[in-house]
């Protein structure tokens, strides 16, 4: 999804003339990475890989991801829509909320976890509020 989405959007932009569509996932990623910036100074390594897409209001996406006990992780979500309210939360494989903390700001949301076990975790991303029909989002992560 993440790799094809920009390419498909690019084709759509080519077909229907210049527009902001292609830029939006990249913009969302820029915001996610902006949220990550202060944590890089704290020693977090930010992965180059990321997830992204677009979602209608009040809908969620689940991402399953491998985490390792002994690391600390931050997940940073970004959107180009300032008026949107977005969120990210982390659950373990049994469905229990597993994050240590989480926060939201305009353009951003983030959640931190210090995994108690090595294994699969579920990241639930949501567009809680937005003036747009569909809102572009991106999720990056870092570890230390």
């Amino acid at each position, binding site marked *: *999804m*993440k*790799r*094809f989405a920009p*390419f498909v959007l690019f084709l759509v932009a080519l077909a229907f003339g210049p527009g902001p569509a292609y830029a939006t996932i990249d913009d969302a990623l820029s915001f996610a990475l902006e949220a990550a910036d202060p944590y890089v100074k704290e020693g977090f*390594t930010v*992965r*180059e*890989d*990321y*997830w992204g*897409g677009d979602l209608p209001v009040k*809908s*969620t*996406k*689940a*991402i*399953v*991801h*491998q985490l*390792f*006990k*002994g*690391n600390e992780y931050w997940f940073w979500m970004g959107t180009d829509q300032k008026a949107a*309210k977005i*969120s990210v*939360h982390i*659950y373990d*494989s*049994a*469905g*229990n*909320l597993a994050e240590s903390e*989480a*926060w*939201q*700001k*305009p353009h951003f949301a983030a959640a931190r976890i210090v995994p108690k*076990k*090595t*294994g*699969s975790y*579920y990241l*639930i991303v949501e567009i809680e509020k937005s003036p747009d029909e569909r809102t572009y989002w991106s999720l990056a*992560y870092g*570890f*230390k």
Partner: protein
Amino acid sequence: MKKALILALVALSPVVVLAEPPKTIDISKLPAQSKLIDDVVVPVPSEIFGVLDKLGPKPNWTAVQRPIKGVAPTPGDQPQIALLLGSVIAEGFIAVEAEDPEGVKQIGKSVLSLAKALNVDKSVVKRSNSIIANADKKDWTMVRKELDGALEDVKGAMSELNSEALSQLVSLGGWIRGTEALTAVVGKSYSKDGAELLHQPLLLDHFEKRLAGLKPKFKTPLITKVQKGVLDIRPLIGLVEGGDISEKSVKEINSITSDLIKSINSKAQ
């Protein structure tokens, strides 16, 4: 006074405290609109090696290296080159742990050469140069970042060339080499915490699915061997959440991954 100041700062902060998320969710009954994203982000080796460094005395990473003499040769078919490229990038992370600038520089050149064989070299020229320059400066943080970046750039370029399958093989090659190194370290000085790092059912299932879905043109004898290796590893990595992974299993996984890496590096495939 201090408390009042803190409360005032909290009130003025742009951070909005979250509405409480549910304490539990039913993973088996995610709402229809919450369909799982099919994209799996494969961890880079340093994400796992860093934990080993924290667990005890720093492992002897030099003993785990598979030094590359000259530039890695490009074997015959594209699936093998893709697997080799992934394993060479993983080797770069091991060389960084071993703080081996010459090894890293050789890997930087090999990444470019293998990327060229896959027709995606344009996307990694800058990364390759940066890996070499930062190895000279012994800036290991930057080398790790550029290795991760090279991996993503190669995979991104392959996706644009409609070579998603090969892109997955790059990830798999890296995972196999990373797992070989991990099991070598844990096998030498076994601990339950170290072995727990192998509990990666999600990644095994992901690779298994991708290998099963490969087009017949990619199903070379090497790919069939890799597919069998992944299936053989699956029951060894802990089928039950929280279940211990034995020393015997660690050694078996090491044997399987070592054999696969030898085949990936072999010219005779």
